[in-house]
């Protein structure tokens, strides 16, 4: 499974960014390879409008199957992710990445759509 996080930084010690479209980084954790990599999203988050669908597209291109985030995506972005069968878990805003992953693994995060 490939797990994505909206994140304020680049490693396990970073925090979940509660924002979806304007998240600064997207972290990708490949569970099989046990590999974490960071993707810079600041170019998207710097745009005035339409950042949700752009971030959603990026998440799809990165092959994310499970997304862990804060508030969750807005309407347009949620529609994109739903069609890509990305499972979305919310309300992890402010948690550390490791903590958020643990909470997800323990089935304690709320999910929407997907």
């Amino acid at each position, binding site marked *: 499974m490939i797990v994505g996080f909206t994140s304020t930084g680049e490693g396990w010690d970073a925090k979940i960014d509660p924002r979806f479209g304007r998240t600064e980084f997207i972290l990708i954790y490949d569970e099989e390879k046990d590999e974490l990599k960071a993707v810079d999203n600041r170019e998207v988050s710097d*745009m005035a*409008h339409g950042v949700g669908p752009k971030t959603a597209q990026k998440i799809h291109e990165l092959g994310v199957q499970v997304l862990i985030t804060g508030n969750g995506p807005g309407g347009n972005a949620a529609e994109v992710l739903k069609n890509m069968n990305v499972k979305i878990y919310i309300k992890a805003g402010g948690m550390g990445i490791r903590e958020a992953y643990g909470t997800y693994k323990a089935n304690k995060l709320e999910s929407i759509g997907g």
Partner: protein
Amino acid sequence: MKEIVILSGKGGTGKSSVCSALAHIKKDNILVADCDVDAADLHLIMAPENVPGVDFYSGIIAEIDAEKCIACGLCAQKCRFDAISLYEGKYRVEPLDCEGCAYCHYICPVEAIAIPQQNIGNYFQAESRLGFTLVHARLNIGAENSGKLVAKVKSIAKEQCKKEGKDFMLVDGSPGIGCPVISSLSGVDYVVLVTEATYSGLSDLERLWTLLDMFKLPGACIVNKADINPSVASEIRKFMQKKKIADLGDIPYSEDFPKAIAMGRTLIEENETRWRPVFEKIWKAIEEKI
């Protein structure tokens, strides 16, 4: 620290009046961010100290370099916003008509069209006359609010709120349900909805609720001007019950609202004996829920 955002869906329901009254009640333990940047008005009531603003850049507009332009007319022909016209033998962009799509920039055969980022206004962080910090923004003429600007105002407010050790950050959000509203909802703990007893008030409340429900955000609602149409007010209450939106109570129509704004006062200053108990009760109800 808890972040509370005040939203209305429909404009003119009394959202900012409610926001300034609640801010007044909690003035010693609060920071206020005015994210209704299209029609920012909290600074009129809060009269913050004059501080230099920080330039804010967002969006692009095409600019034709007259020296490089060979007047081929391709840009004017392709611009779907009719923003480019011929003027004394050269093409130029009418900034108010340009949507910033950048199509002309990419097709210009002599690369004469630049797409610089626009300085759309300033944002400020200043002490209000009631003592708390107000973060607000001012747009240039013709500029529009964006999710990006709201995100900026909120992130400055949040940082400052933590630095000051205040327990509450109050955000005055935009009307509507678009990009600036979605942006104002990021990372909030509680949403206070202010509607009015009219059909457009109800309809916009329903639309806004659909958005909040998607984010699974908890919210409560105040029905302002509840007595101007009691039957609509009861329809609103029915909607709230159906959607399990907490009821923060009704406020009857009062000319104190426009009067207070015109005089640059909060409702508490306008008529303390009348309004302080009302807003203290509302604040207490909010605090119990977060």
